[in-house]
């Protein structure tokens, strides 16, 4: 495995990667030691954690094994909102060197902070992510995550610089220029949201640029939103770009909580910094490895804003099987759904990812789509709008109606629901430059 620590032809040694291959017993020791430290730190410095632990009658000294994490109270996104902006910070502001914030779609954003050491850890896990996805210092990497308050842009940027790759800090948006930069600068790898890259593939086609023939982009790290295996196949077929899933969320550190290796069978979690649990979201009890549930993280080294049993709302399972890459840090299954993305239509749970899967089964390429939720006589209704592309268009009304029916049948096979599918004109669904907006919720507007 040592060979994997040597990066690129010039043989630059990255000891960071060695942590991915630590003997499991040693990894658990490190985790326990860090867990004890972070729990004391959170208990002493953050009122919310102290009050919740006191209410349960738990003291930091009660954490004697990794399993004892289960005795700790949970935290969640609403805790960040309720204590906005700095209520969960565990260090004086003088020690905080960076703030990031989420796009607060409902009300206030959530704010996260980093100490200088937190920034080092974050950079390190991103370097490990990049190395596991095969990025090298010889790569010219276009970073299309938004630079600014969003953790994606600056997070990846720091890691790419530490890797000594050539960074093109393109940020999001201005799609034609993105393609131009890739072409003119000889970009070999990219990072960004998968939905934005799908949009770029479309833009390149319009510009008459063939990703496989005209560009040198070989690999991409995609994250910040759940994306299906079908979308991965689409990206790879349409662009020839090998797509790796990087997982993260601002509340834990940002991107770099986990990342796929060359096996691309779910992200490895950097367990020496992030303690992972899967719980049943109803009973809140832990579930066995391999069983699906809600992903919960405890940060093991965060100083500015430690997270104790933070409920991510992401639905996945721990994959305990050893990975053929040799990493000892465990994988989780790729996240295709979030418990807060779910909606209930006629009593059936539906996730946007299921609609995406259904559309990809019908058409070779992923059409732009929008799920529209409305409420009629107190019941939630769902409609799926699908953009007709030139490739999908047939000179026959009957054939177009058949296409509409095939979409509806495919959705029905996956969700069990008969959902209205409407064909709409190309470009009529808004494109996003960051995270895709796949759902238009009109349930409040029309009741």
């Amino acid at each position: 495995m040592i060979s994997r620590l040597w990066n690129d032809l010039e043989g630059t040694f990255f000891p960071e990667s060695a942590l991915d291959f630590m003997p499991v017993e040693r990894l658990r020791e490190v985790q326990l030691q860090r867990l004890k430290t972070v729990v004391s730190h959170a208990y002493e410095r953050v009122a919310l954690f102290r009050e919740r632990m006191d209410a349960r009658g738990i003291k930091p000294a009660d954490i004697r094994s990794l399993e004892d994490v289960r005795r700790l109270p949970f935290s969640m996104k609403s805790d960040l909102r309720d204590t906005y902006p700095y209520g969960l910070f565990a260090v004086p502001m003088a020690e905080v060197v960076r703030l990031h914030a989420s796009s607060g779609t409902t009300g206030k954003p959530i704010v996260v902070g980093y100490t200088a050491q937190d920034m080092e850890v974050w950079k390190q896990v991103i370097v490990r992510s990049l190395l596991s996805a095969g990025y090298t210092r010889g790569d010219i990497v276009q970073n299309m995550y938004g630079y600014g308050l969003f953790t994606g842009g600056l997070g990846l940027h720091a890691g790419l610089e530490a890797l000594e790759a050539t960074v093109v800090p393109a940020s999001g948006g201005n799609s034609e220029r993105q393609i131009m930069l890739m072409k003119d600068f000889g970009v070999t790898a990219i990072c960004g949201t998968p939905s934005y890259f799908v949009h770029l593939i479309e833009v390149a086609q319009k510009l008459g640029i063939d990703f496989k023939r005209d560009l040198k982009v070989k690999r991409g790290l995609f994250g910040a939103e759940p994306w299906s295996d079908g979308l991965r196949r689409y990206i790879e077929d349409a662009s020839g770009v090998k797509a790796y899933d990087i997982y993260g969320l601002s509340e834990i550190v940002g991107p770099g909580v986990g990342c796929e290796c060359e096996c691309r069978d779910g992200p490895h979690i950097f367990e020496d910094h992030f303690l992972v649990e899967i719980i049943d979201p109803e009973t809140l009890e832990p579930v066995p490895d391999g069983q699906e549930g809600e992903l919960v993280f405890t940060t093991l080294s965060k100083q500015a804003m430690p997270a104790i049993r933070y409920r991510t709302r992401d639905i996945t399972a721990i994959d305990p099987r050893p990975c053929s890459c040799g990493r000892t840090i465990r994988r989780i299954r790729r996240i295709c759904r979030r418990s807060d993305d779910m909606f209930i239509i006629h009593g059936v749970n539906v996730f946007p990812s299921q609609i995406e899967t259904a559309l990809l089964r019908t058409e070779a390429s992923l059409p732009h789509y929008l799920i529209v939720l409305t409420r009629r006589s107190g019941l939630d209704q769902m409609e799926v709008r699908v953009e007709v592309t030139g490739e999908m268009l047939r000179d026959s009304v009957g054939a177009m109606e058949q296409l509409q029916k095939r979409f509806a049948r495919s959705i029905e096979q996956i969700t069990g629901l008969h959902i209205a599918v409407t064909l709409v004109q190309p470009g009529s669904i808004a494109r996003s430059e960051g995270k895709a907006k796949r759902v238009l919720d009109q349930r409040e507007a029309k009741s």
Partner: protein
Amino acid sequence: MKIRQISVFLENKPGRLSALCRTLAEAGINLRALTLSDAGEFGLLRLITADPDKAKRVSEAAGFAATFSDVLALCLPNRPGGLASVLAQLEPQGLSVEYMYAFARRTGDAVMITCFDDVDRAMAALQAAGVRLLEPADLFAAEQPSV
């Protein structure tokens, strides 16, 4: 001779047809013939123009999905039974008409724009039956619109 027709997808929303027509007008594209098929939630507008490539390009640039298909322009005498006798000759050969639309010319004949399930076989059968098929050039040069 086959004629290149373009079909444009139209959402059934007010203003879509006029937006497309405006786009084509601004590009200086004259429509020789057209038909609109409606399927309730959407429609297909089929167009015959002198420059189908340009028509498709400008339509797509304006955000419309468009596709080409090959149709035949049958030139028939403009009198009762003109079409019936042609169709009667095609029927035994198992050729079927998907759709057709027509316009009359001042020269006194009628042009039937026809989409067959098998355009190549239909073309051969029609030529064998002595039906005059218009070339694209005939279709666009034959007459100037009267003012």
